[in-house]
């Protein structure tokens, strides 16, 4: 064994160890930091490269046959329909109940579901939240948040999601004349805006008398599409309900497609936010959309900002947190090493902090009534920022 050989080993290892240390490369400027961050994130591979090439070995060494894919199944039950393991998987799970609308499935009320060995408590209204009275007290400012799994705090202990943390913060530091703040978490896996519209149209939201309705969104994948495309492929147009989406589905069938183009997705976003805004205005409740970044290199700030601008173009007030994770190592904010679609507890803490700041900053402009309650009934500003 030659000294030169050992020296090369040690030097090369030392160089690699230093070069990939984030404290070191982040001093080289934002461009270099972004590049090396992407280099270190296999989320990039999964979303970008992996989609384009499907070699035998690539297939085996990624999702299906990799230890990462294996662990994802091990802990999440992906690809297994054994309801005793993953209560969120499979139509016959005792924790689901079918809906006769575009949501397809929904949670059963009053249950504690173990997911990834973490208790997810659902209250008597079927919300992942504590119990609330049907009507808020007069001195209580009630917010209803609608969104998907990150709002539900998928895989995060009860009370540690950003919605619960924000509620705690608002109650610890009350704003304006309000003595109490309640945030009702309507978040659920895959419940993005189109399913939020169904929740509103099913009369689940406004009877609870919110003073503000918040739609939480992010930049990647419209997860509702899976259920939608499935319904379209089975000609279940009655269950889809909305004529716009029915026509859209018939167009997909005519063109023998199972995917929406980016332009089509944008048009659905515009349509759904017009509808959501319309419902909130009719109910005279202010509303806004909040864009949260995900710990995934595909969810880059510009992409989220573009989506939020599109939403803003509909007249919906918008708080975009697309810069909230700037300077942070995204991998360290992932819920689990194999799950880059969900924030961990630290990510939720950041979202709660920044959303709190955003709400206070935009209170007056959006007419949220946090500091000065408007006379009943509230009328939303609904203005574009």
């Amino acid at each position, binding site marked *: 064994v030659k000294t030169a050989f*050992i020296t090369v*080993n040690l030097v090369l290892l030392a160089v690699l160890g230093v070069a990939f240390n984030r404290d070191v490369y982040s001093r080289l400027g934002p461009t270099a930091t972004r590049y090396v961050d992407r280099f270190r994130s296999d989320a990039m591979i999964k979303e*970008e490269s992996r989609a384009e090439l499907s070699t035998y070995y690539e*297939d085996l060494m990624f999702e299906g046959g990799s*230890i990462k894919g294996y662990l994802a199944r091990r802990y999440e039950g992906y690809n297994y329909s054994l309801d005793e393991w993953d209560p969120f998987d499979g139509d016959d799970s005792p924790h689901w109940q079918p809906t006769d609308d575009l949501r397809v499935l929904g949670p059963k009320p009053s249950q504690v579901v173990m997911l990834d060995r973490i208790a997810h408590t659902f209250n008597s209204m079927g919300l992942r939240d504590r119990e609330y009275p049907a009507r808020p007290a007069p001195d209580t400012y009630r917010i209803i948040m609608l969104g998907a799994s990150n709002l539900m705090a998928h895989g995060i202990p009860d009370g540690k999601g950003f919605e619960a943390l924000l509620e705690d913060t608002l109650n610890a530091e009350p704003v304006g004349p309000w003595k109490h703040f309640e945030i009702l978490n309507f978040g659920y896996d895959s419940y993005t805006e189109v399913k939020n519209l169904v929740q509103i149209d099913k009369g689940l939201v406004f009877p609870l008398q919110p003073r503000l309705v918040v739609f939480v969104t992010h930049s990647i994948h419209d997860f509702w599409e899976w259920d939608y495309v499935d319904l379209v492929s089975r000609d279940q147009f009655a269950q889809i309900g909305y004529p716009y989406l029915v026509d859209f589905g018939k167009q997909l069938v005519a063109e023998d497609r199972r995917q929406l183009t980016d332009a089509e997705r944008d048009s659905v976003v515009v349509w759904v936010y017009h509808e959501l805004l319309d419902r909130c205005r009719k109910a005279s409740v202010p509303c806004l959309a909040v864009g949260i970044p995900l710990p995934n290199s595909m969810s880059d700030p510009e992409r989220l900002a573009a989506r939020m601008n599109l939403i803003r173009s509909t007249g919906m007030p918008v708080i975009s947190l697309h810069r909230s994770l700037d300077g942070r190592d995204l991998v360290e904010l992932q819920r689990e090493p194999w799950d880059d679609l969900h924030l961990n507890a630290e990510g939720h803490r950041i979202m709660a902090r920044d959303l709190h700041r955003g709400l206070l900053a935009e209170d007056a402009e959006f007419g949220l009534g946090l500091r000065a309650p408007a006379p009943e009934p509230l009328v939303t500003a609904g203005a574009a920022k």
Partner: protein
Amino acid sequence: MASTALGADATGRNFTMSGMMQKLILVAELLLLCIVLQETRIISPAFIRMFWIAAAGALLQELVPIRFKPAFFLGLSLVCTATVLQIFPTLVLVGFGLALIGVCQLPIRLGYRVAILAAMAAVVAFYRTGAAWLPKPSMDVLVIIPVLASMFMFRLSIYLYDRENTKTKLPWTQTLNYFFMLPNVCFLLFPVVDYTTFLQSYRDRDRWKVQQSGVRWILVGLVQLLLLRLVELHVVRDPDDLVTRLDHFLYVVSAYLMYLRVSGQFHIIVGVLHLFGYELPRTNNKYFLASSFTDLWRRINIYWMEYMRKMIYYPMVLKLRGWGPVRASIAATVCVFIATIVLHAYQYFWLSGDFRISARDLLFWGLLCALVLVDMYRERRHMERQRQKGALLTARGGPQWQTWLGTAGTLTVMTILWSLWASESISLGRWLEILGRVVAP
């Protein structure tokens, strides 16, 4: 104090390195490897976690008496497996694995043992398909199937084969090490390690040299995976977004480059085993520089080639020797490729849950088989000519430029073939259109 010849200094004199210095260097190398794995995140977090334990184990084994070192490796392998799978699934894995090995030991005819093993595999296979009508055991039992399969799907056949063809008593601890070897739990796609080679590669003395080659193999694997990341960032193209000729060219070449992931991981696997005294041969050898298709077959995924040679090629040639050497060799080679197709689908099933033999698979392996056969014919003719001239027999010959030409030709054809294989997301017509854009004047 023990000392080892290290080399020569600037004056040409030999000098030695003390045992303590060797240990310090190894500590530094392993610590740096842990840091590099942690910082680059080039491999799964499960492996990074496991490697910290393995590195500590590689250092601690120096304190273990020589005769207990294999047992120490077995214990460490099981601990590492448990850190990834947790304790109960690991116990299930070991229990089922011992049952499979136990069947191989039964004092009954080979055919009966194979039948029992096949029946056991069939039951597990039904569960692997996720058939809803089966009684559902605990998820902790079900989730170990891919890991169990990764450890036993090929190695069990080699073990059974070697057990039948050897008269010596096989060592139990090393047998268990062979099946439950440490890095396997983190790499479900695992090189098909040969049982006899595994036993013969073990060195219980002079570990320093073996460990240094292990560190080098891990480093080589890491560099290959880093290069692959560059390929993924800058070379891979979306077939729907190809505009320039360069885009088309990069789309075609990127597929073959993705094999760096396999070779990189295999180098790391073998490197980890070297740290514990298993001086296994290399798994891939400069396959991009293969000068012919037979040469490629000898360089790429060498363990697979050896497995096929041992289990299919030689038995077939022996069985068909009445046909004459040329015909027997051709028939055996065709059988090797047919077995490769079927066993790749078999492997795919166990690891991912789906049985995959696509038209592209058949086309790829069929064309590769034809090219290997043509090369075999050319090599045989070359050797015949040399024999007639009374020259020393060599498989290759000719001037250097011919070798380089062969390398360029093999690389080009393999790049195109691999691209064809990897482009399942687009139609054959679209792939030909892309290829046409690359080669069109």
